[in-house]
């Protein structure tokens, strides 16, 4: 893949998703699915788990650790996602899944993970190279959903229609009107710590917002779901403390539930009734917003120096 700017990668999110959804995988027979990954590569598993949690007849468990649970066995499918293929924790999950005899499929652009899978005879779904890991999320969501389909899981919506609608939404976000809307939110979030809260069904999307604000904007941010962040507690925070925190609720119904609790509360409604479409639109909105927030702060969204430093330090002591 030719090297693209982060903005171009962002633009291609719905196209990447559409391509990956067409990926064909042979039928998989399993009793449980582990969605293993870290950081940007974990998001796709969490989002897909949110899509299928109510309808799946097979347990879908997200794992972010150095290993998979001890109860995993040869009836368990472990989907190991790592853009670089070199994430230390993800390689740990691969090794323990292999030790426990799990069925394994890796989604990666290369690295040690690809080498090990090829050596051990496990399937690798290749990701394009030269991408920012977190912007490969369109491919990762699409491939993970293709694996779900191979496991017999069904969606309640026509995903092709969703992809078409996402392309239209992308065009809107990149239009003058869309840019103005994003600009308004950028102004509301300027010099504040966002606490992104949503319904349980979109908690993975709130997590995506947090990580994109962390990495693109270089801002600390927090996220949670209504089951964890009780409304009364959040209202109490907002009333009692004026510490440059902004409550951001995302999703249509969530806004209704919250109403306007405080002048430091904003609600983002991306205008869809369907969970899958609404979730993916909200992912896109958060991605564009965090990029625009980075521009506003004059920081480079591509640079993740602290993570590079951490990886170098870990290499030194290993």
């Amino acid at each position, binding site marked *: 893949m030719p090297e693209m700017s982060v903005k171009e990668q962002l633009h291609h999110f719905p196209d990447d998703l559409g391509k990956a959804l067409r990926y064909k995988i042979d039928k998989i027979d399993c009793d449980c699915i582990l969605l293993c990954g870290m950081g940007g590569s974990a998001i796709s598993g969490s989002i897909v788990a949110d899509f299928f949690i109510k309808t799946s007849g097979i347990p879908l468990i997200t794992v972010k650790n150095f290993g998979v649970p001890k109860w995993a066995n040869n009836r368990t499918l472990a989907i190991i996602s790592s853009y670089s293929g070199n994430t230390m924790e993800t390689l740990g999950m691969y090794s323990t899944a292999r030790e426990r005899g799990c069925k394994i499929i890796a989604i990666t652009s290369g690295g040690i993970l690809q080498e090990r899978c090829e050596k051990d005879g496990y399937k690798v779904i290749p990701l394009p190279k030269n991408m920012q890991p977190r912007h490969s999320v369109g491919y990762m969501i699409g491939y993970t959903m293709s694996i779900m389909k191979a496991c017999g899981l069904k969606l309640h919506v026509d995903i092709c229609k969703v992809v078409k609608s996402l392309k239209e939404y992308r065009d809107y976000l990149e239009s003058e009107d869309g840019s103005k809307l994003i600009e308004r939110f950028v102004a509301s979030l300027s010099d504040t710590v966002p606490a992104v809260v949503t319904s349980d*069904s979109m908690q993975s999307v709130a997590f995506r917002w947090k990580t994109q604000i962390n990495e693109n904007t270089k801002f600390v941010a927090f996220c949670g779901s209504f089951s964890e962040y009780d409304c009364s507690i959040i209202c109490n925070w907002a009333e009692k403390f004026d510490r440059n925190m902004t409550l951001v609720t995302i999703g249509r119904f969530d806004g209704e539930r919250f109403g306007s609790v405080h002048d430091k509360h904003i609600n983002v409604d991306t205008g869809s009734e369907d969970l899958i479409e609404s979730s993916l639109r909200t992912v896109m909105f958060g991605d564009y917003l965090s990029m625009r927030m980075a521009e506003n702060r004059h920081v480079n969204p591509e640079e993740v120096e602290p993570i590079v*430093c951490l990886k170098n330090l870990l290499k030194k002591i290993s």
Partner: protein
Amino acid sequence: MKPSYAADISSVYSSAGAVLSLPELIAEGLKTQFKVSDSSSLYIFATGPTSVAAQFIADASNKYPYRVISVVDSRVPGWIGEKDDVLIISYSGNTPKITEIYDELRQSRCRIRCMTSGGILADMCRQNGTETIYLPEDLDPRTAVGLEIGITASLLKSFGYSHIYDMLDSFIAPLKSYRDSLLADPSRVNEVAKELSGNIPAVYSVVDSVAAAKRWKLSIDEDVRSPAFYGEIPEFDHNELVGWADENAHAKSLRIVVLMLRSEYEQYKKVMDCMLAVLE
């Protein structure tokens, strides 16, 4: 079933009072007897302070070949069915959406047990003959967490998985000594309290003991009436680190608290040391 608590649960408290009686309440919970049965997996539904108990048990179970999943969610996973055991914990029995969760779980035909002090949940259990473990009334929901941990460990023991029960049983005396030592010399506690006073803490712990970080967050939320957040390592050392490493001039009142707890995975010690070096 109804455990044979003393009429007044306060008889088991240490002299330090209810809030500091976690070891005594865990020990009390461990006394609960369940009929021995088979089980392949346990899903624990709990939100708010109660979810600390569910998270603690799920974290501790990861080391063993029995599936315990903590569900902090109003959604009932579609795969839960007649082969599964479910424990719904709601101290008040009036947790939002508890009626919908209970009804949906009944339809899935799983084996339901509930742990509560009353409310709508207790009423529904009585109407439907659902096995119920009654918690003493008039406790602070956070104080009840010790009991909930002990009772859930006893339930797992009845399924043939006694590891967590045995671990907790062996920890009661050391936990009491630790609590007493903190009361005798509160200098470290005071030092941390001073550092956090008037600030917003973000408490992190390794993923297999994240219940501790969550407990800190909830206690600060409710006791101090201050915002607090919690998170886990790894994750902190991926995307989050970039946010924290920035100057964050607008957020000077944030404080990171890292709970240096031991993990099943030795690699975490290295990750935490390097992560703290990057932040410094």
